[in-house]
């Protein structure tokens, strides 16, 4: 999972900040304080990582076909100052499945085996290496006199770290010298991972400084560095360089995978149109406006639907409605297939029966909880129930979805009654605590949500809460985001085992109720 993000010179953030992300990370702050900056930074980082593009397209806008929200480097760099270097870093934990690193090398035929073919190394990263991270340096293109010549962002370098210790720093020499000369890297030979391999005696890392690995490479900007490190790239002949290349590639691919697995749910979730047909696959764009949740619900199995209904039901959120799937098929098709079944006379028709499901249209709707088992109960379109319900369903689906992932959700409490906001706290705890181990980055204004989580911390310490609702202080990170003279400031606030804040809460957020009561 993604475990950290660092931001510098991005939107309202000027000075470097680092946010450690825990199973539940809450971003609090006033409107326009900069809470969304964190999610935007993740999106922008992914955009650079996957496409080499220093342009960020707002996911919600993209789903709606609105290309105007494509944000350029100039719009995203702090203060729109093109002379600034933007730095964005993302860290993720290494799972057991991430530990194998394949190293493929074309050895020098003059000094190697008779056949001179490729040699493969397969190494497994030691357990003590728990995280990897990449930090991008993005700037506008500078000419030799350091004048901005483009409003477009350019990936001018990056640093790959293992266990939070920088291992390889790569720069594009075009930036340094104003002409095309390829990429250049510097490795920290004291890095524990390199030291370990170095000490094995098989690979010598003594001459690795300033090795150029992509001479005369002139990709268009959008191809950037990622292409340089893609599998199609020419493989360096030096075994040490090959190892470094493999570690860099490992970091790129692992982070790319992690970021592709995350879900970003925007602050306003759409309600599917009455005539829209649920799509069979979820895309990140459809998650951003919540429609992917409805797609999933229309096609999911009974068990998953039951999970969502459990959270909607009277025991938890008390939404008074339950979700129900309906399969719409053509009437004449049905008649034909029933006949085919009865007569057992037409194998072709039997075959087509099994395709019926495929050709049918699936619908998801809601039925009143008190009437859910009645065939004649009204099947309501999501637009026919309260707005809060339609807004919360994508959040619940993100929590119970069988694919564990990192979900960043803006205003999960949107349009919810305070009591339901409290229950949301349990939903998130339950989600990461059960088999899925989901993680959440939540932008919220909800006092009730955080108070429930703090209560569960207290109860966990006292041993008075069920296993699936246990949460330790280290599972929660709270960041208070504020604006000070145009700069976004971020302060971490920790909770103790009594469910109380260790640092004073910066504003009167938790005292508003008191002062309203006694005002």
């Amino acid at each position, binding site marked *: 999972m993604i475990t950290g993000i660092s931001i510098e010179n991005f939107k309202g953030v000027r000075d470097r900040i680092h946010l450690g992300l825990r199973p539940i990370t809450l971003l609090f702050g006033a409107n326009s304080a900069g809470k969304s900056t964190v999610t935007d930074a993740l999106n922008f980082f992914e955009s650079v990582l996957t496409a080499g593009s220093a342009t960020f397209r707002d996911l919600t806008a993209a789903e709606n076909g609105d290309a105007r929200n494509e944000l350029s480097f100039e719009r995203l760099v702090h203060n729109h100052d093109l002379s600034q270097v933007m730095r964005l870093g993302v860290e993720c934990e290494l799972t057991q499945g991430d530990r194998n690193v394949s190293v493929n090398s074309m050895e020098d035929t003059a000094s190697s085996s008779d056949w001179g073919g490729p040699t493969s190394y397969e190494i497994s990263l030691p357990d003590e290496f728990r995280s990897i991270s990449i930090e991008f340096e993005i700037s506008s293109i500078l000419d030799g006199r350091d004048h901005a010549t483009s409003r477009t962002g350019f990936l001018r370098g990056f640093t790959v770290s293992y266990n939070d210790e920088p291992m390889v720093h790569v720069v594009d020499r075009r930036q340094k010298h104003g002409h095309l000369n390829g990429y250049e890297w510097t490795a920290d030979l004291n890095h524990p991972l390199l030291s370990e391999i170095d000490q094995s005696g098989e690979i010598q890392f003594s001459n690795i400084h300033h090795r150029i690995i992509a001479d005369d490479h002139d990709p268009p900007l959008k191809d950037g560095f990622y292409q340089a490190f893609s599998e199609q790239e020419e493989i360096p002949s030096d075994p040490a360089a090959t190892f470094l290349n493999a570690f860099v590639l490992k970091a790129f691919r692992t982070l790319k995978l992690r970021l592709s697995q995350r879900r970003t749910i925007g602050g306003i979730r759409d309600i599917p149109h009455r005539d829209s047909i649920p799509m069979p696959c979820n895309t990140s764009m459809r998650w951003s406006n919540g429609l992917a949740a409805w797609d999933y619900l229309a096609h999911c199995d009974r068990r998953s639907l039951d999970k969502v209904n459990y959270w909607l039901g009277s025991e938890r959120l008390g939404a008074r409605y339950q979700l129900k799937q309906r399969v719409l098929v053509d009437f004449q098709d049905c008649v034909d297939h029933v006949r085919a079944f009865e007569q057992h006379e037409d194998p072709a028709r039997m075959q087509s029966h099994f395709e019926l499901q495929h050709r049918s249209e699936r619908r998801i709707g809601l039925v009143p909880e008190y009437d859910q088992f009645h065939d004649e109960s009204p099947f309501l379109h999501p637009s026919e129930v309260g707005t809060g319900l339609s807004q919360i369903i994508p959040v619940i689906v993100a929590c119970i979805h069988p694919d564990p992932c990192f979900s960043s959700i803006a205003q999960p409490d949107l349009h919810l009654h305070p009591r339901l906001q409290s229950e949301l706290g349990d939903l998130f705890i339950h989600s990461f605590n059960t088999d899925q181990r989901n993680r959440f980055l939540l932008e919220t204004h909800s006092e009730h949500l955080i108070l429930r989580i703090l209560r569960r*911390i207290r109860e*966990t*310490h006292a041993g008075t809460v069920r296993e699936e609702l246990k949460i*330790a*202080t*280290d*599972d929660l990170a709270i960041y208070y985001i504020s604006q000070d003279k145009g700069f976004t400031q971020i*302060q971490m606030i*920790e*909770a*103790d*085992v*009594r469910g*109380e804040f*260790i*640092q*004073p*809460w*910066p504003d*009167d957020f938790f*005292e508003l*109720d*008191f*002062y309203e*009561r*006694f005002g």
Partner: protein
Amino acid sequence: MLTEFAFTPGVFERESYESDKVWSDTLRALAAEMFPRTGPSPVVASDLFSGSLLPEIRKQVRRIENDNVRFLADGLLTKIQQVAVQRPGMRNWPESDLDWFQESLASHRDEPIGRIVSTRSTIESGEISDPSVYPVEDTNEDKFWNGIGMSSSPHLIADEQMNLLRTMLLHADWIAIINPYSVDNERAFVRAIYANATTRKPGYDVPDFEIHGQLDGRFEASSQQSNAEDLKKSLAIIHSIESNISIFFWPKFLDRYVVAGTYTSTSSEVKRKKIRWGVSMSHVARDNDQPDVRTSWHLMQKDGLRHVESKFLSAESRESIQSIEIGSSDGSVRRAQRKVF
């Protein structure tokens, strides 16, 4: 400045008031004075009998029949719990309001409580006259709040200044004295705080100390180390009980603060300092000061406490501090630290 309050459960009972309106008005007045919106709360609340009083009052509040009064009482009690400090039990388990009143008096005799607030009938039943005891209706009068506030103008007299800090010094698990001259010509003030804070009755733990001073460019580091050793020895002589003392030297700074708090822990059982109170001071009493001169002190607001925490107390701020080991008189090694310039 910071004043300790003890309420008896009767304050939250209907029978103590003429009408629900009088009761509501009293609760509103208490809330406004105890928890002003414009600054830090100047009160702490005694949680007598090792933290048993306030849960008892909570039970009482839940029984209030009038919804509006219960709403107010519940809100006030929640705020009171946020400023609570525990006191050890003195007598048998208190069963009645009078028992709680007697318990508060017994605790008060051990370590003074600024205001003991009870019902008139309970006070009369107790047949005790003490200037710290007030019937709850007196909380509507200005004289009740005299001396309780966010600011104070003490004389440059050590005893008077210690009296202002006494509540904080009594209930803190740790105390940090931040004063550029704490190991130089204002070390008498540090000694006075140490003496006050460590003179505690049984049931009150001795606090840990952090002393933050300025590494004056006039002196070599070795001289500062010598000063720090002298200070530490002089503090140790005051009492046989020796608390943990850490001394830190920083580059030039001007602030004078005494901040204090409690220890708490995370799930991974990491002991953490939780900052609760702080006083910023223009000047502090020195041996040769004119006693009729006054100075100004202020209780610190949340942002001020956060500033002090990040500047002097946080692990990040101490990352670049170089350690100096100071051997103590008992042979153990104490750690002092010096900010690297």
